[in-house]
């Protein structure tokens, strides 16, 4: 049947992708969204039939790492998201139009799709100096942000800037940069934190909305549960080393080469909620811990002020890993610092023994 609006399915079929591959894609998508296999046919149906959702993607104070991450998406490919799943009508980074022609799009979308577009925000508004630390079209960015939020269906806060404030909001927060939900009060704000968020998490959130026609289930902090309900530490492949008391003690030491736990090098995995240790980065190639550096906790609120990054977490109160999991390793929640010291001692003894 000829349709004015092409669907995702039609597009990939025409590209020579088989029905079988498409079905497999839907199963993978279901799996990456943490859904039961039974959800795959529903995803397939949605991708076969739905027109594209208008998205307005605005930039405040930021570094564009979220946009860069988004285009790294491997499943779905960024090009397929942009050409076939959504209608990316405004995006400072990719759009062909500039100046007045760009501004005119915003007016048009507000009128034509009132209450029917999603506002995606990368970066955040500064409130000092009447907002003029971020000027857009001659006016404070915060005004443009509020105006576009007012007529949107929902708002997506890309990354830690929009979600929490991130680096420019680190002490002393010179520009008084604030998370977007400080100025957008009357719309659902889906927070997708991370500096940046994982590409497939970003496209996962978008495709969840376009596929199921509803917003993903959020935790109390507004983050999609499917990606942010587990700590890096919970699913870290080096967790066994933590439990066994095998730690990297110094950069490039024997433990580092053997892939031991980076806890003593400051790893924030135990207090960071994100999908890095499960989804991993850049099509699953690696994640910070796998490549030898501790997690810096970039998806957590205020992580810049929880440093120095190389100070171990025993300095941080409320070290929260599940008691059960800890007992396996002989660490009792609440006396973690002592536990780690004990572990360190055990490790030292083990290493000495091995050397002899």
């Amino acid at each position, binding site marked *: 049947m000829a349709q004015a609006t092409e669907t995702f399915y039609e597009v990939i079929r025409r590209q020579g992708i088989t029905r079988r591959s498409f079905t497999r894609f839907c199963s993978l998508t279901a799996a990456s969204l943490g859904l039961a296999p039974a959800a795959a046919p529903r995803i397939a149906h949605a991708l076969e039939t739905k027109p594209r959702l208008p998205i307005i993607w605005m930039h405040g104070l930021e570094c564009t790492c979220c946009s860069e991450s988004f285009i*790294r998406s491997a499943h779905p490919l960024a090009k397929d998201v942009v050409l076939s799943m959504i209608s990316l009508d405004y995006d400072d*980074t990719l759009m062909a139009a500039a100046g007045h022609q760009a501004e005119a799009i915003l007016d048009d979308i507000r009128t034509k799709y009132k209450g029917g577009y999603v506002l995606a925000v990368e970066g955040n508004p500064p409130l000092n100096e009447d907002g003029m630390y971020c000027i857009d079209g001659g006016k404070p960015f915060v005004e443009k942000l509020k105006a576009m939020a007012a007529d949107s269906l929902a708002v997506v806060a890309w990354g830690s800037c929009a979600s929490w404030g991130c680096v420019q909001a680190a002490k002393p927060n010179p520009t008084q940069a604030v998370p977007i939900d400080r100025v957008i009060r009357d719309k659902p704000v889906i927070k997708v934190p991370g500096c940046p968020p994982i590409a497939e998490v970003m496209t996962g959130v978008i495709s969840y909305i376009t596929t199921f026609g509803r917003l993903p289930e959020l935790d109390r902090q507004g983050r999609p549960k499917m990606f942010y309900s587990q700590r890096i530490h919970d699913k870290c492949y080096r967790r066994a080393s933590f439990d066994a008391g095998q730690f990297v003690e110094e950069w490039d030491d024997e433990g580092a080469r053997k892939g031991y736990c980076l806890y003593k090098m400051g790893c924030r995995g135990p207090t960071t909620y994100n999908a*890095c240790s499960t989804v991993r980065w850049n099509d699953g190639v690696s994640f910070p811990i796998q490549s030898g550096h501790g997690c810096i906790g970039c998806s957590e609120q205020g992580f810049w002020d929880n440093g120095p990054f190389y100070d171990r977490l025993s300095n941080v109160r409320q070290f929260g890993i599940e008691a059960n999991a800890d007992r396996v390793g002989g660490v009792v929640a609440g006396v973690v610092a002592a536990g780690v010291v004990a572990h360190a001692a055990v490790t030292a003894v083990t290493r000495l023994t091995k050397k002899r």
Partner: protein
Amino acid sequence: MDINTPNGFRLDNSGRRVVVDPVTRIEGHLRVEVNVDANNVIRNAVSTGTMWRGIELILKGRDPRDAWAFTQRICGVCTGTHALTSVRAVENALGITIPENANTIRNIMQLALYVHDHIVHFYHLHALDWVDVVSALSADPKATSALAQSISDWPLSSPGYFRDLQGRLKRFVESGQLGPFRNAYWGHPAYKLPPEANLMAVAHYLEALDFQKEIVKIHTVYGGKNPHPNWLVGGVPCAINIDGAGATGAVNIERLNLVSGIIDRAVTFTEQVYLPDLKAIASFYKDWLYGGGLSGRSVLAYGDIPEHANDYSPASLLLPQGAIINGNLAEVQPIDLKDPAQIQEFVTHSWYKYPDEAHGLHPFDGITEPNYALGRNTKGSRTDIHEIDEGAKYSWLKAPRWRGHAMEVGPLARWVVGYAQNKPQFREPVEKLLHDLNVPVGALFSTLGRTAARGLECQWAAHELRRFQDKLLASIKAGDLATAYTEKWTPDTWPAKEVRGVGFTEAPRGALGHWVSIQGGKIDNYQCVVPTTWNGSPRDPAGNIGAFEAALLDTPMADPAQPLEIIRTLHSFDPCLACSTHVMSPDGQDMATVTVR
């Protein structure tokens, strides 16, 4: 009013004012205003940086080993280059050295960034200034295939391939939802490509979008993620283990093979897609050689990619270092980032305040005191600017100068310096390209020349990637596994007195420097002078204009309401505004002085 600037440009702001805000397809926020004469030729140009975050101030009092992570967040497009500059600055201040393998891996990451950034810039940030997407709809797929096959061996070139792609594009356009392509300048007379070249370029726009995500996996292997991979003062965080227990937790043969495979594909993509496209597109724009600006007069390069660990002298740096002024290519002047008489920043036209604004300050002695105020001739209000007054302060960028000269930095600057130094690795590709396009050397100093230099550099970087990856393999084979030195890791090993350091790199966009002072284990002061601050700078007290403003002058516009020519030239610099902004007061509107000894 007519003004002749000391750096040789004539400004006339009497004609009609044209405003472009926001400038899109860049990093960050930029506004540009120009005046056009009766023939719609640009006679005055005003570049305004419209964002400011204050990251340098946020760094004060923090652990210098963390600074790479903060400064890396200055920019997510040139991700990694600020982090590398930062670890170099801190190592320079504290006298920390790094192992050869760490230097090699850092070079691999920096070169991977060049390849990624240049490809993304050419296809996704810049191509639509030359390529008319709508025109591609009327292309003949067979003729497109013939064109593609005549310029390259790239296998995705059959008539069927282009027909499918055109079909997808047609459906997309017919859907009425044009997404990122809506409301643009399609059909504008400044587009010169035939439909077939447009269709081929659109195909490669999409292929490049797929491929760029592969290149960054090199960062993911060595740095754990991209954007914003991890770095380390004293080396790199990834350990090497090719035999022992737990090798799968480190850089091992599988990881090395993954990187090698990507490098091969990067070389192929650059040579079979990027460069042939560049030449094909350029051949239709040989008559559009506007936008030279400062490039033929004053260019600056710090150099980068040290062959040997811990040796940042020009002899060790593979990318050239030096300054050329007043178009004198016969003399490349030496530079010193620590010399207070060389690099200075001015604020007469920036939203900052100095006690004496007639003089510039070296980054080690920087004062940053915000002073957002508009000139009397501004049209509009404080929070609704219609036309800015460039006679007063008008940008969040400072105006850096080298020995008083406004300088252009970036790929073209690097290649001009390398060319002037008679280095065959720069001279020969430039001469070949000029010959292939049948244009004189003067054609280099243009918007197109800037875009071409980036392509040549991408090819150079892809081959250097291969060489450094082989170097790493050879080193491992010889038994060297070291990736980090830790004798000076803890603050108790650092000097108690104040120490200062400079780190520099060539970011994809140009010369980048970080200046740090450390005292008592903490950052006492941190200053960055970044490529877009050089290129996008406002005027200085002497009246010298910066590279963006200079490049826009004398360009004819087909239709001032459709500013395609303006964004084409601006994009050729690959502006990055989040990078280019400075320190500010901790308490907002109250001015505070951040003074450094």
